[in-house]
């Protein structure tokens, strides 16, 4: 077998995996369903903090953005389309070529890297915006992890962090509902004991040297089958914004 044949087979495999990541009815359907709601929150927070007009063509032009746990690029691609300079990082090596193939198909220029927040911080990389979505409940030492995230932010930079609350309802929704009944997620995806309440997250963020400024619930409505942001209901999924204080 020649080298080019191997490459072609590999590319075909990655293309198939990218198609799977991006299939709205496929394996990652729950993420696709939640994505508009997450993007609404992210776009509004960035626009407010950096004084950008979302009706412009590329409002995030000039902002350097890191997407931690980028997977197939479900957040990285929209951010690149809005004009941000995007680095997508994932600890799972297999996701990187998949995300790369998909970005190329759409003509998007995104810097995908097989790395971690801690490694990027050690390299001295800094960003205007860090997206830290549904990662913190999976790490073994949230305090150390969030400190690394703070080091990745430029002074005045903004981090958006979402996770799952530790309530009876989140046990019902995320473990029993999503994993056992709907089979949206493989069993064992989440360990409910590692879920973090909003107050616990706020004190972890402050401990990491960040200044939490906003929190909202993301609520799934089983009648309209849609996610929406909610000021009061943070019982299951919620999202926060914090700032790295300017020195």
């Amino acid at each position, binding site marked *: 077998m020649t080298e080019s044949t191997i490459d072609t087979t590999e590319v075909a495999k990655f293309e198939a995996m990218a*198609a799977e990541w991006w299939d709205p009815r496929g394996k990652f359907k729950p993420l696709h369903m939640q994505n508009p709601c997450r993007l609404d929150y992210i776009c509004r927070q960035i626009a407010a903090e950096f004084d950008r007009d979302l*009706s412009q063509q590329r409002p995030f032009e000039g902002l350097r953005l890191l997407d931690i746990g980028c997977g197939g690029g479900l957040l990285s691609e929209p951010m690149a389309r809005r004009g941000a300079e995007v680095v997508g990082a994932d600890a799972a090596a297999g996701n990187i070529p998949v995300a790369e193939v998909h970005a190329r198909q759409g003509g998007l220029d995104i810097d995908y890297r097989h790395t971690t927040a801690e490694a990027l911080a050690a390299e001295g990389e800094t960003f205007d915006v860090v997206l830290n979505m549904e990662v913190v409940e999976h790490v073994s030492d949230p305090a150390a992890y969030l400190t690394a995230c703070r080091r990745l932010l430029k002074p005045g930079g903004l981090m958006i962090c979402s996770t799952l609350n530790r309530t009876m309802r989140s046990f019902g929704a995320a473990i029993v509902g999503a994993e056992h009944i709907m089979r949206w997620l493989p069993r064992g995806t989440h360990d409910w004991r590692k879920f973090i309440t909003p107050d616990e997250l706020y004190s972890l963020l402050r401990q990491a040297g960040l200044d939490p400024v906003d929190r909202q619930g993301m609520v799934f409505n089983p009648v309209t089958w849609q996610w929406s942001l909610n000021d009061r209901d943070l019982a299951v999924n919620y999202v926060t914004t914090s700032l790295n204080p300017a020195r």
Partner: protein
Amino acid sequence: MDNAGSAAIFGGMAHDTDVLIAGGGLNGCSLALALAQAGLSVTLVDPLPAKARGDAAFDGRSYALSVASTRALKAIGLWPQLADEAQPILGIRVSDGRAGQGPSPLSLTFDHAEIEDGPMGHMVEDRHLRPALLDAMAREGRLTQITGVATTAQEVDASGVTVTLSDGRRLTAAVLVGCDGARGPTAGRAGISRTGWEYRQTALVAAVGHERPHGGIAHQFFMPEGPLAILPLSGNRSSIVWTERRDRADRINALSDEDYLAVLRPRFGSFLGDLSLAGDRYTYPLGLGLANAFVADRVALAGDAAHRVHPIAGQGLNAGLKDVATLAEVLVEAMRRGEDIGRIDVLERYQAWRRFDVTTLAVATDGFNRLFSNDNAVLRLGRDLGLGLVNRLPGLRRGFIREAAGLTGDLPRLLRGQPV
């Protein structure tokens, strides 16, 4: 592509244009304008040469625009050009009639005082609406028009849709919108079939002058042959939409102007004095059609391409403008979040928002037409009683008015008169 302003800003410059619209009728033009104003680059392709599209005699119809449609036209900046010629509809009178007998005593009256703001809608003539749209489009930098050219093929891949034109050009876009009418080819090429039937009825359309002022009142007479609508235009003129069985309509249409009026007079009645023709006569065969889906991967349908309804309640263009407002809002919101606007999950939001409404409209107008296009004595008594009953129940009547005015349901921003 010759217009620098129309370079796609979307998808990392991967496409020639963000949105390609097939069909430059009223819906296609309104959609193109709304999207370009909101920041997307748009290319509109229409098979008619530019000159024919601008020709005043091209389409003799008038439209009963609902309050919501009027707001949408205001939001896209067309109203200043239309306001002078638009005739406010101040009331609607619905009655059951038989030729030579005039309307039955049990009739249904809707009055604009029963809804909160202003008239129930406006009558706007195609010869005014079309030039207003074309002028506004010519001023919009993000909008390119390609006229005198048809689409001949379309091909979807992971990142976009490629459309081939009859002059051999190939254009890529993030999404293709078929505004190409009830027989337009965009749907079929996307694998979407249509369900429907012909009514074996034809609408005879003309503008008539009359001696007495209409007072802004629209009339709908239900005749056994089909409904006759008399819709107020500016001055002492009205637009008639006169529905007849197809064979009779063909015979009436072949008559001289004088004989045509002679057949119309007993149906119209004498309440506005003597009648004369105030323009050319037109005929439109009627049918009902509903696309089995409004979207496919990177393709959306709007207007008659998605649904062709009986014009009985004047809801054809109003339904089309609802599509336009909804699709524009879905696409613009997706653009603002950085989503790929042609993805099926984005387009399905448009379908979910519109489909229930449209199916209800198609079934309701079809049922209305079947109920009223009939001379069965029992049905006639039943519908007379029904009209009388609705007239006596203010709550129910107000519900009908709000529905006809397009003010019910979860309205997209354009229909509330706001920019997208």
